[in-house]
């Protein structure tokens, strides 16, 4: 084909048809493409397929809340003064008039009381920050429990987890900016923790605050971190996170037609563009609604920072709670003087425990990959029950976090439920250790039981709710075979077996292989052998047979009744009172074909 022909057909087309979107759009698109070759990009991504599931939207909550945080935060920077210079408040809020306070608090009060809609934007910013961290949290739980961190997505797990830590850092630096009583006390706690770090603690605190606590520099320094350094890193990581998601393609749940080597779903344009755009506005709208209805961080009630007063029952923002709770659970008098230096174990132990927890979550994908030795790519999001040990570990981790989190409210728990402070703390200390163990075993057993239930349904069908009395007087409940499309969601086609260690070339078994073997035993000892197609077909044949048998028995019974009544020619089916097809337990999403039992399931049907 010569170039001339191509040009000719091109010209023919433009003469015959109006370009898509009109001449202006076509012209603009051409202008941009000739300078950016963006058409290749649009062609590649425009109709890219994404799988659909409600849980895939959790990460989106975090992303859109981040957008809200950026937008509202930018507005706030136009008014906020990140300075601790002393000034006298003379704004609109009468109770604080004449009070000496820092420019930071003064400008925050001005945003709240002297700028129309300023309070709204401040509250949007704070609520959106809470939603942002919460969104990351639930998104991470979804990834963890479905095994979506497995190869090739381990790095994206790490990137996402770093974003979680950065989001908490953003939250804490932001919380400290207004320089009110609460944020000052929060900083004082951080200062106390930093000072407890061996070797570098004292100097780190000294450099951080530019001298002694509180100094007059910390707000300005945290502001730079809050609006420049941390957001820049977050945005960069978010871009990498999303690029990796596009490169790896999104995981999907197993189902009819959905395999490890395809993606089934809807195209980016127009479906996901509309859905995601719509979801941005819904997230934004919900946050604005919360901000217009519920007060958050009423700094005007707290007043300027002063090292002396404090109010009882104050709580940190929710995501810092687990760290604060960790501090509260340490036993008394844990300072030790060793080598002529002070070792502040009352602070170090909670810090180490929380640090280890964070590191364990961060490296979990690599641990599991090492134990399984599985180097294949996984694009199917597992059902949590099918990875019983992982789900149990996750439940233990969630319980551990939850106990630390509850400990941050130990005083509120004690006062609200009329319990002793000591009782609450001792209970939580015990739960911190026992709770995860209980959660682990309960969850593991529940997962295995759910697997067995799935197997039961796949083999023998679901309970139809129809009770039949057989001629012998026996009552049975008829089980209806499950639809083949539904069945494929219930079965898992592979499982892991514990490692059997063998000596290497030198005839030795290295210690790490022994460790791996015992870990793999821990992971995979209790497991169900996957169902095979043969077993399913045998069960189906049997089921078909017994359903026929029940039908025959029924027919016989009816015929007998008819004959006894003297109407042997009456129809054999039971009188239709409108309830015969009602099956209480039939899953609503089952497609009832004309005769599900005769259709043989074949691949690619």
């Amino acid at each position, binding site marked *: 084909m010569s170039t001339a022909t191509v040009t000719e057909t091109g010209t023919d087309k433009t003469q015959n048809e109006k370009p898509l979107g009109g001449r202006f759009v076509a012209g603009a698109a051409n202008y941009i493409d000739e300078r950016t070759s963006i058409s290749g990009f649009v062609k590649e991504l425009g109709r890219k397929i994404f799988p659909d599931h409600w849980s895939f939207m959790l990460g989106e909550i975090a992303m859109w809340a981040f957008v809200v945080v950026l937008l509202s935060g930018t507005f706030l920077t136009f008014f906020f003064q990140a300075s601790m210079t002393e000034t006298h408040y003379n704004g609109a809020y009468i109770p604080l008039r004449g009070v000496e306070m820092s420019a930071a608090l003064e400008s925050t009060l001005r945003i709240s009381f002297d700028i129309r809609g300023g309070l709204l934007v401040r509250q949007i910013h704070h609520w959106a920050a809470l939603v942002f961290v919460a969104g990351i949290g639930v998104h991470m739980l979804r990834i963890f429990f479905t095994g979506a961190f497995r190869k090739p997505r381990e790095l994206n797990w790490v990137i996402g987890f770093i974003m979680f830590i950065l989001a908490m850092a953003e939250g804490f630096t932001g919380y400290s900016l207004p320089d009110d009583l609460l944020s000052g006390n929060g900083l004082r706690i951080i200062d106390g923790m930093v000072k407890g770090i061996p070797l570098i603690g004292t100097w780190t605190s000294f450099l951080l605050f530019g001298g002694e606590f509180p*100094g007059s520099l910390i707000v300005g320094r945290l502001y730079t971190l809050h609006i420049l350094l941390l957001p820049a890193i977050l945005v960069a990581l978010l871009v990498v996170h999303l690029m990796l998601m596009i490169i*790896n393609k999104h995981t999907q749940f197993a189902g009819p037609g959905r395999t490890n*080597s395809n993606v089934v779903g*809807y195209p980016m344009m127009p479906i996901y563009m509309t859905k995601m755009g719509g979801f941005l506005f819904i997230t934004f*709208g919900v946050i604005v609604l919360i901000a217009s209805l519920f007060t958050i961080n009423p700094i005007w009630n707290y007043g300027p920072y002063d090292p002396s007063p404090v109010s009882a029952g104050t709580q940190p923002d929710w995501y810092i709670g687990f760290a604060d709770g960790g501090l509260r659970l340490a036993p*008394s008098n844990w300072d030790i003087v060793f080598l002529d230096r*002070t070792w502040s174990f009352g602070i170090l132990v909670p810090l180490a425990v929380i640090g280890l927890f964070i590191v364990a979550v961060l490296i979990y994908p690599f641990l599991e990959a090492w134990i*399984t030795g599985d180097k294949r790519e996984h694009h199917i999001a597992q059902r949590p029950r099918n990875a019983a040990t992982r789900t149990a570990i996750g439940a233990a981790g969630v319980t551990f976090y939850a106990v630390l989190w509850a400990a941050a409210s130990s005083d509120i728990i004690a006062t609200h439920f009329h319990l002793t402070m000591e009782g609450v703390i001792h209970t939580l200390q015990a739960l911190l250790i026992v709770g995860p163990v209980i959660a682990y075993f309960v969850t593991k057993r529940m997962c295995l039981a759910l697997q067995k239930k799935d197997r039961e349904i796949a083999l023998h069908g679901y309970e139809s709710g129809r009770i039949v009395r057989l001629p012998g007087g026996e009552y049975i409940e008829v089980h209806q075979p499950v639809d083949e499309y539904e069945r494929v969601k219930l079965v898992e086609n592979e499982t892991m077996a514990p490692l059997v260690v063998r000596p290497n070339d030198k005839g030795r078994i290295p210690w790490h292989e022994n460790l791996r073997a015992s870990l793999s035993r821990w992971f995979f000892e209790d497991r169900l052998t996957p169902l095979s197609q043969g077993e399913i077909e045998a069960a189906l044949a049997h089921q078909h047979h017994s359903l026929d048998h029940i039908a025959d028995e029924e027919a016989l019974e009816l015929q007998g009744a008819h004959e006894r009544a003297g109407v042997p020619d009456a129809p054999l089916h039971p009188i239709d009172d409108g309830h015969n097809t009602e099956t209480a337990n039939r899953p609503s999403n089952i497609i009832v074909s004309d005769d599900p039992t005769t259709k043989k399931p074949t691949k690619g049907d």
Partner: protein
Amino acid sequence: MAHEEDALEHERASWKPSPGLAVAVPDPVQNPGLPPHRARMTDKDPAAMTRAVRTVYTLFYLSLAGSIWATAAYMLFPIESGRIVDIRNNNLFIGLGIGLALLALGLGAIHWSKAVMSDKEFIEPRHATRGRDATREGAVQAFRDANEESGFGRRTAIRGSLIAAVAASILPGITLFRGLAPHSDKSTEEGALAGDPVALLKQTMWKEGERLAHDPSGEPIRAADVTLGSAVHVIPESLAELGHSEGYLEEKAKAIVLLMRLLPEDLPAEYNNLDWAYDGIVAYSKVCTHVGCPVALYEQQTHHLLCPCHQSQFDVSRSAAVIFGPAARPLPQLPITVDAEGYLVAKSDFTEPVGPSFWERH
């Protein structure tokens, strides 16, 4: 799912990734393929489609109304009076308008995509993430050529010195951050301390003869005015002379004290240094020895002090020993007596650093 039917692993000729401990069943359950497409109400019934379309544009118009309302509310609800009710209304009505605008827009778009747009599912194949063998070979070749031409691997003297130089170039950047906190100025007594955090942490502004004053009024406290069972929040009298730029908050953060008067029999000599008390009046640092919160809550019946931040409890009748909670050690005691006019004064500074533990504390 079934890795037997999995095209991914066979896509790259030289790539046969290990399944590790995975065991596949020899006769796996077969995937029936995509179920037949189910038509939605809007596909089957033109009236339903009309209704859905109407819902979508009604929501979009509602959003428009919300935006107009929010803009109007900005003008209709001024806050310049400074009254709380006006600020609340301004916040509420602008917020409700914006909330409506955004929610209606979002819901409209989602309804459009779910009910009106085609819901045909597409299947797209996945490809192995790993590059094709030729691509990888090309990448390796690029490095090989670059290495050959630059001699990076061969010329170890250049490589070693380069790595050392680049590493060293970070040092000045780190050094600069020493400037985050002040340096010492040996020419004055105060200046000599400025750059030494350990020395600063080990002293407060309490000194012999410094009067104890009420926090925040600064009125000196007469011993006779301290009633039994009361707890008084105390600052040094000369703190009031300090301006905010002269270290007022920094000194206050270390010097705050809680003063309590107990019955003399509630201060048993075996647990208390009675030389540091005056007639049942004792003074303890108010800075928690855990992480530094103010230990502000006193229960006069039990003589317990409670820190509201992390619930450490201290027993005042036993030299403020820790009886519960994460605090590391008793609150430091301020030795006090009275001066000639009957005012409470400090006998000296604290004899140990106040506040949370730090590395060089001992």
